[in-house]
């Protein structure tokens, strides 16, 4: 056993116990840790945004190198702060419109290609899937799962007869999906707990490698 002498490790340990104390019940120590976390995160984000983005990508080219074209993004950025002045708050619509227009133009074709075209291609049964029986089986299950799950969300006709059978099969697939997500969520939360315990045992107490 080799207890850490690093002051920052001790700070982290105290804050870890502060957050864990919520498991017993809500308390001022927990609240302090929570607020400290929020404050530190925001401060860190502002500092890093300034030094990694605003300063090198806007301030330097505009004010140090005299590249006047950068006055456009500078002005658009300033328009965001008009939100705080009621008389000119409508100025914010200009950068918002610019961002929405640009982002939609860039994202929609890419999104369509990645999340619709490629996904449909991945679902369609092609001759190559017959090469191996297990590939064929999983492709068939995926195909049935997609069709039945989509049919569950088809609300233009009453769900009866074949449509009812398909939509109820869709529910089964959806439930399996939710179950898998829940299982993974449990695993994720346990991993975080284990990570904290590893920190306490290794970095603080020095009882494991």
């Amino acid at each position: 056993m080799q207890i850490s002498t690093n002051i920052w490790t001790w700070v982290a340990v105290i804050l870890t116990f502060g957050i864990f104390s919520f498991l017993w019940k809500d308390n001022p120590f927990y609240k302090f840790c929570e607020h400290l976390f929020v404050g530190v995160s925001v401060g860190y984000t502002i500092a890093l945004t300034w030094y990694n983005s605003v300063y090198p990508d806007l301030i330097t080219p505009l004010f140090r190198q005299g590249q006047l074209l950068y006055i456009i993004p500078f002005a658009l950025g300033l328009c965001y702060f008009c939100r705080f002045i009621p008389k000119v708050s409508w100025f914010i619509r200009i950068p918002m419109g610019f961002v929405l227009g640009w982002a939609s133009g860039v994202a929609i074709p890419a999104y369509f290609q990645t999340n619709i075209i490629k996904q449909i291609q991945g679902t369609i049964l092609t001759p190559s899937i017959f090469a191996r029986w297990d590939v064929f089986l999983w492709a068939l299950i995926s195909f049935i799962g997609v069709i039945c799950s989509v049919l569950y969300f088809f609300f233009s006709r009453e769900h009866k007869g074949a449509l009812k059978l398909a939509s109820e099969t869709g529910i089964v697939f959806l439930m399996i999906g939710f179950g898998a997500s829940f299982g993974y969520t449990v695993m994720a939360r346990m991993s975080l707990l284990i990570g904290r315990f590893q920190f306490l045992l290794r970095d603080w107490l020095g009882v494991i490698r």
Partner: protein
Amino acid sequence: MNLFEKLLKIDRKIIFIVMAVLVLFPLLKPLGLGVSSGPRAKAAFDAVDAIPPGKTLLISVDFDPASMPELYPMLVALMRHAFARNVKVLLCGLWITGAGLADKAITEIPPEYGKTYGEDVVYLGWKAGVDAVILGMGENIKNVFPVDYYGHPLDSLKMMQEVTRLKDIPFMVAISAGTPGFSDWLLYAQSRYGMRVGAGVTAVSAADAYPYLQSGQLTGLLAGMKGAAEYEVLLQRKNYSKAYMPAVAAMDSQSLAHIVIMVLVIIGNLAFFATRRKRR
């Protein structure tokens, strides 16, 4: 009050204590339950293994300290794999709060393999504007990152003479805890520049990643701490690393915790149905 009614009214603090003991015990006394590697981790491993020595692996550090236990071991394992094969590593990030974690990895891992910053590894840092950053990197990395995280001009870094845009990089792994993350790399880097993308994700978002794996858009997937452990096992099997494997060490605790949760779910359901019948 019968047994089932007592079980339904059990104090949650007792469950917390049982869970804490079962997680702590295997960390102190490993049970050696073992970890097997699955096809998804193997696909990511093979893709990194296929990068010719001297070429570059891009790793996007898209996570924050909150998901560090799951994702940091992946970052470390990927870097060790690359360095063991003399593959260069280029790091960047879409999460501002991940900047410090990439810096930590840059400080710890390259010296293990005698690798030099600027020649074998470069950390570009973080920039605002996810889509603009990826699209810009596709055209010219120096336009988006004129200087690296530490303020060195990219022109002054030897490694960056050979890596000017995404097309120069044969494979990348996006280690992501959510959005932005691997989905943005698929959206822009793959659909526009045809880049091969692998993903390391938190277990919570693993279910969202599977459709991209099935459609062939993702080359390999590391899901949660288990994914990291699988990768560590593959590294050790090929003698690429003999270092401590934090994810593998955590798997005994993970298995015990899962067993407890399964038992509790079963008991909870049994107790609920048993007492419901009585209530009726």
